[in-house]
């Protein structure tokens, strides 16, 4: 995780009232992207990925603590290359590397959606690594309504009660076969995902970071998707994805957080639910 930048430091979880101010009148921020290419990608060459991947986010975030993002593969079905990993980078966030997704080699994941926290007006980059070893990049721009428009943790007691609870859901699709074929599913994990950048105003110490840093998903024993997550993932991490079911009977999830908790759950693939 990159060291927090003071400008963005306190803006992660904002206020209940929407703010319409323009971004701080301070000097134009330096584009952090070249530095991020260095830190995250070791200065490797990154190709234009507009034929490989699409990224969708709202241009203006209604709720900067819960900003939906969708990553969609544009590879043709007969393309010999496949997506191996996708790294999501929110340039102006204190911890810009929001998530790194690793796509199971047999799962043919074609779409991933999640929700992230966005500090302020920022570029968001998605960098895919393909099986050919090359990196491909797409980007978009998001305005977080002049700042943050809602704090995470609306209901602190409820959040505590829900810690580690996991839900799995399958969405009906027209092209879906009984046990195999393309499938859209979703995993949710109850977790405050505390950033570690929230200051306790009494002690002036930081409320400790406490977040899901790893999530792995399998169909029977075949990896579907895994996520290395950071503090830019919203409270109650939610991953929705399209993959190809292989006739597996069970869907399995394992999540780990920074306090060493391990949450595990298994579902029969016919039913979705808790």
């Amino acid at each position: 995780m990159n060291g927090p930048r003071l400008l963005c430091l306190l803006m992660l979880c904002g206020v209940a009232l929407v703010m319409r101010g323009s971004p701080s009148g301070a000097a134009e921020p330096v584009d952090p992207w070249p530095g991020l290419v260095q830190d995250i990608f070791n200065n490797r060459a990154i190709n234009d990925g507009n034929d490989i991947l699409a990224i969708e986010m709202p241009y203006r975030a209604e709720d900067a603590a819960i900003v939906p993002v969708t990553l969609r593969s544009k590879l043709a079905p007969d393309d010999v290359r496949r997506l191996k990993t996708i790294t999501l980078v929110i340039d102006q966030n204190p911890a810009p590397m929001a998530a790194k997704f690793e796509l199971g080699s047999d799962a043919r994941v074609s779409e991933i959606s999640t929700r992230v926290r966005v500090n302020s007006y920022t570029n968001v980059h998605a960098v895919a690594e393909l099986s050919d070893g090359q990196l491909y990049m797409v980007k978009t721009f998001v305005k977080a309504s002049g700042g943050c428009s809602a704090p995470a943790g609306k209901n602190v007691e409820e959040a505590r009660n829900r810690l580690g609870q996991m839900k799995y859901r399958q969405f009906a699709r027209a092209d879906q076969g009984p046990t195999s074929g393309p499938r859209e599913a979703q995993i949710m994990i109850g977790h405050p995902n505390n950033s570690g950048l929230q200051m306790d105003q009494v002690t002036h110490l930081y409320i400790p970071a406490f977040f899901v840093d790893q999530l792995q998903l399998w169909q029977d024993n075949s990896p579907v998707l895994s996520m290395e997550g950071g503090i830019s993932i919203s409270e109650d991490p939610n991953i929705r994805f399209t993959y190809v079911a292989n006739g597996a009977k069970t869907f399995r999830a394992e999540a780990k957080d920074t306090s060493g908790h391990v949450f595990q759950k298994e579902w029969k693939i016919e039913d979705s639910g808790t």
Partner: protein
Amino acid sequence: MTFFGLVLLTALFVLPPAQAQQPALDVSEVSPGVFVHIGTIALMTRENEGAIANVGFIVGSDAVAVIDSGGSVREGRQLLAAIRTRTDKSIRYVINTHGHPDHVFGNAAFAGEGAVFVGHKNLPEALRTRGPFYVDAFRKIMGDSLIDEVRIVPPTLLVNGTRELDLGGRKLVLQAWPAAHSDNDLTVFDEASKTLFAGDLVFLEHIPVVDGSIRGWLRIMDDLGRLAATRVVPGHGRVSEWPEALTDQRRYLDTLAADIKATVAKGATIKSAADTAAASERPQWQLFDDYNARNATAAFSEIEWE
């Protein structure tokens, strides 16, 4: 008086407002001893000095209770001035109905009055974790001169369930509610006038803001409506009859919850919910475009767990 003295005296009267006496906040006496300032229906800005919430005070035979202090220390001082033009009784309590900036930013104006700050048992934590963010965020919008003097002053007298306060022959019944508008909502009922200060558990004209639990808010609405008040001071909007004042808000929240439930059930995304939920309510509320999509997102992330 010398000519010079006359010039000096005149100069004192034309000094810029910064030097002049603090103006008093405009308040109405809605019932004997119960005073209310109705906030502007707007977002907090430098121009309105954050004065967007309803704030007020109740005068008993011995003491005064303040209910919410406003969206800036400047507004808090103006509220204090309004109190002092009417009574010199001591301010025994400053009650915060919940922890949002438009209701608590004026607390510092009362710090020297010997008052006890009162709030929901969850309010200290809410202020502790969100206070610095609110201050920082609103500094960018309202500017240093309004925000530098803001101090986050947590309550020392906490309410869990109900609690009575006495202003000298005048009983106030305070009630802490489960998560609804926020997770630290507190109402104040003045028995003498049957006036309910509902804080942001009640919105009129201003779109209700969901920052706690939409289901929780709908669940408590019947009990709220059964409180024996004849008049309500909502957190935003005009003083109204009780319980009729709940009608519009209940309809909005019911509609939003139903729309979101349907969206979740059919597997649509949180983004589509933000775009479409409660669209029928748009003509009914001010600031709809500022808050509805955010309410929809909040409701979605709550209801998808059902």
